[in-house]
């Protein structure tokens, strides 16, 4: 049974149980309760999701860098990363992806609806989710395209303020290669399971400071926290499972959780795939990314399922198009039982973006 079917079954079965109406009994009981003085309460703070992300990005990069490189004592943790290339790929692509998420305005300006066929899909949930989902396109593209060709190198540095340098490479859908370098120091704390990590990650023209501290407990279940300060930090739970790897990522800003996703890297029916689940935040749904080859062209195929009173599923097919010396994503969305329609967005990658990822490449058709 598939996960979405199971969840739907649980929901349906739970609604079959008759729950009696005790509302009048309860009112009768409380009418005789003593009155309490009213207490002054304050509304929960709300916040928006934008400028501080650049700062948080640095700590997020640290977390992923940690996953790549952290080997406490050498022997205990290393076996959990049997397929370390997958972890490396995931880490690199995740870092890039988070820049996309950080730049909220980026998607506003690089999006347009081509507008044929989507008049029949006005109530389509995927319409409101596609912008957020597409922010993860870069990570998926690189992870799924790079396969096992990451060419990881580790080097101990002698004439540097950093102890270690790591280099690894990714490829994307149009076969472009990107180099990533991470320079870092790792210092164990008194408790040998705890450590601090300091350094920076270098991607194209961009560098991001990394600071992290972490705690590892067992080989297949690694918990970490990277903190910018006591109120701003990122927690990550890495789990090696039978079917692959899952990373649970939670970003906390001013002591409030603002974003939470899980990314599960695995294989099904001979296809390597990554499942993106939005757990917390403005977005929702479960998205399974695969790369398939059609007519000698690589495309990303995304199966999606969005739960709710009226759940929705469908398929998104994504191709990278070359227009006027720039690339963009062309997405064909086909909700189940609905009509196919198209979105496009600029495809500007982390390494091609200027410092802090502020520039936008956008091509209008």
């Amino acid at each position: 049974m598939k996960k979405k079917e199971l969840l739907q079954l649980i929901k349906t079965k739970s609604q079959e149980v008759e729950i009696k109406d005790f509302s009048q009994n309860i009112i009768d009981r409380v009418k005789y309760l003593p009155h309490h003085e009213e207490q002054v309460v304050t509304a929960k703070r709300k916040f928006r999701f934008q400028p501080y992300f650049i700062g948080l990005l640095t700590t997020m990069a640290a977390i992923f860098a940690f996953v790549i490189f952290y080997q406490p004592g050498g022997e205990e943790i290393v076996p959990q990363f049997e397929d370390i290339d997958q972890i490396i790929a995931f880490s690199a692509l995740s870092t890039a992806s988070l820049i996309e998420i950080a730049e909220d305005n980026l998607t506003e300006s690089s999006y347009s609806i081509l507008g044929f066929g989507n008049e029949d899909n006005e109530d389509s949930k995927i319409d409101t989710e596609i912008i957020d989902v597409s922010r993860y396109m870069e990570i998926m593209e690189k992870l799924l395209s790079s396969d096992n060709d990451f060419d990881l190198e580790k080097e101990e540095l002698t004439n540097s303020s950093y102890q270690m340098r790591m280099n690894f490479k990714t490829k994307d859908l149009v076969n472009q290669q990107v180099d990533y370098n991470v320079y870092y120091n790792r210092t164990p704390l008194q408790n040998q399971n705890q450590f601090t990590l300091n350094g920076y990650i270098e991607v194209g023209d961009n560098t991001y400071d990394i600071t992290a501290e972490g705690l590892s407990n067992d080989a297949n279940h690694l918990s970490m926290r990277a903190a910018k300060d006591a109120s701003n930090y990122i927690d990550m739970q890495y789990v090696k499972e039978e079917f692959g790897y899952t990373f649970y990522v939670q970003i906390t800003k001013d002591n409030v959780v603002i974003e939470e996703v899980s990314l599960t890297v695995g294989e099904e029916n001979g296809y390597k795939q990554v499942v993106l689940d939005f757990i917390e935040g403005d977005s929702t749904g479960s998205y399974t990314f695969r790369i398939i080859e059609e007519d000698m062209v690589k495309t990303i195929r995304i199966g999606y399922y969005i739960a709710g009173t009226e759940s929705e599923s469908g398929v998104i097919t994504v191709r990278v198009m070359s227009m006027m010396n720039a690339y963009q994503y062309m997405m064909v969305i086909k909700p189940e039982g609905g009509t196919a329609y198209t979105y496009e967005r600029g495809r500007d990658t982390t390494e091609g973006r200027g410092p802090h990822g502020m520039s936008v490449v956008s091509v209008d058709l």
Partner: protein
Amino acid sequence: MDQIHAIIEELRKRDYKSFDTFYNLTKNQVFYAIVSIIRDKDLAEDLMQDTYTKFLEKIDQYHSGANPYAYLSTIARNLAINTYNRNKKEIISDEIIESIPSPEESVNDEDIFKILDLLEPIEKEIVTLHVINDLKFKDIVPIVDKPLGTVLWIYNKAIKKLKEKVGDVL
């Protein structure tokens, strides 16, 4: 959610005219928060009434803007755990097993209970709170008093277990 918050503000002023609406909007969450710990449906219904009574009694402690489902689930869970522990103690000390419904008695034969019974207690609770009660994981964390990563880990393990075994009980 706006509707429920508006009703809570009325309830805060001891205006109960919309309480039946509030009850209907929240009864599933309260019921399942209880039955994930105590299987006895009759006892659960008693505890439901206690939960709402306690909520109304202490409504001034409810912070505007908080998640009412999580808040009610917390009250319901605490009452259920207290009752569960009290019943266990009484059974041991008084040896009057027949007269006190234990958590495993009065077994309900609805399918949902057959499904949930495939899980360990903590798995059952987290699946119930997330899938049936629609609580977000971050709201479940303070209820079960476990770190987010652990909650997610338990949840995923439970879902995996159910995927394999649910066909055996339905």
